[in-house]
């Protein structure tokens, strides 16, 4: 059972974020796109935090976030976007979908670990 779910179509990003968080003692699972992320969340309600890309095939990250809030009625899980996008419209859509945070890639674990610990622990 995982505490954190990483959703990204890039294997390098998944591995990097997973390894960093695992080194800090977190239980981490991964998903390869938004659809996979929804399935993983449904199967593991213990997940407290999702770190998610925007640009993914099959289902993008913002659509996944909207789905989590509206279809799954899950307003507890914290969703943070980790993306190359810095578009104000996308951020606004994220906010409306209940996204809590927005990280522009590349991932810098040391910059976000403090907040992650507060959310999870």
């Amino acid at each position, binding site marked *: 059972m995982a505490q954190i779910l990483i959703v990204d179509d890039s294997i*390098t990003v998944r591995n990097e974020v997973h390894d960093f968080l695992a080194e800090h003692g977190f239980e981490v699972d991964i998903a390869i796109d938004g659809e996979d992320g929804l399935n993983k969340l449904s199967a593991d309600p213990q997940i407290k935090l999702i770190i998610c890309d925007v640009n993914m095939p099959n289902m993008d990250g913002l659509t996944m976030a909207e789905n989590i809030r509206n279809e799954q009625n899950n307003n507890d899980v914290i969703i943070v976007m980790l993306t190359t996008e810095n578009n104000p419209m996308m951020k606004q859509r994220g906010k409306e979908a209940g996204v809590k945070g927005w990280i522009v890639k590349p991932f810098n674990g040391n910059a976000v670990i403090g907040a992650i610990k507060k959310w999870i622990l």
Partner: protein
Amino acid sequence: MATSNQVMSKVLISEDDTDIRRNLSLFCETINISPIRASSDCLVTALRNNLDLGGFFLYLPSNQAATSLALAQELKDLRPDLPLFLRVDNNSQYYELAKDKQALFVGFYTLEDLSKLAKLVEQFIFNRQYPNGLIAGIKNITLDAISSQFYNVEVVADQPYLIKDNIIFGHLFSMVPIEGSWCRGYLMMQTEQDKLEDMIASQHTKVKSFRPSFKDVNAILSEVTNLIWGKIKSNYFSSSPNLNTAELTQVPIIIDHSQKYISFGENQVHLCLNYRITSTDEELANELFISQKLVFNMKYSPEMFDDIERALANKDIDNDINGELEIF
């Protein structure tokens, strides 16, 4: 004429006379042409070693016209997109050529009037301006993106060039669309698979593998492309506010020529229809195959198709004639 800020273009100069070659090269630098000098007997090698050219400068000696024209044709066959600029000893030499030979060249010039060469270069190579800020920005973003994915390396950007070449460098390239309010096109990153494999195997990248597969190579290139695309899109290619943000998401497409492999970033089945085209002349017996593939990698909602089919069935086809001009 040339400015220190203007981007250059590489041109292959085929001149056997070393003095002329040198003088022409010096003139080229005043019109932002970076000359690559080659004698006529090693042109093909020079071509193979330079895949990012803007054009050719070729000389037509009066006593070896046939050889030079044959060379021009060969160059055109090998690199059809590159403009050929012809140097002649006098104007009549060009006008005496057959029309089909004249058509090989975008124009001609003589050593006595190099301003004509400058005008031709302006017309056929420097006919599009790329803002310096855009070039510098893309370069810096790309340097940062590469540096973030590779360890213990030095990353240096070469002089930017304008190219007419459409030759793919290396075996592997990624492609991602750019959709902006002021431009639309594709960002491509092309590289050599074996060299990138070596980088991965020697632990210079974020992929941890001593025996990288071609999918590992694809992963690195995909992520670098993604980082660059995201940043340049954010900085330079902002979209119209009327566009649905869901339609703006993209993933890089990876093409690996050595594997004849193309990836759209997902594992769904693709719709494929094959067409066979056969000549009705039994004696010729020509046959052609075309394979058609539809890849809906970013969005696929088949439940919406019923409405579309119904709308099509109800459509008034009399008002929908192909080829008609519709005026708003």
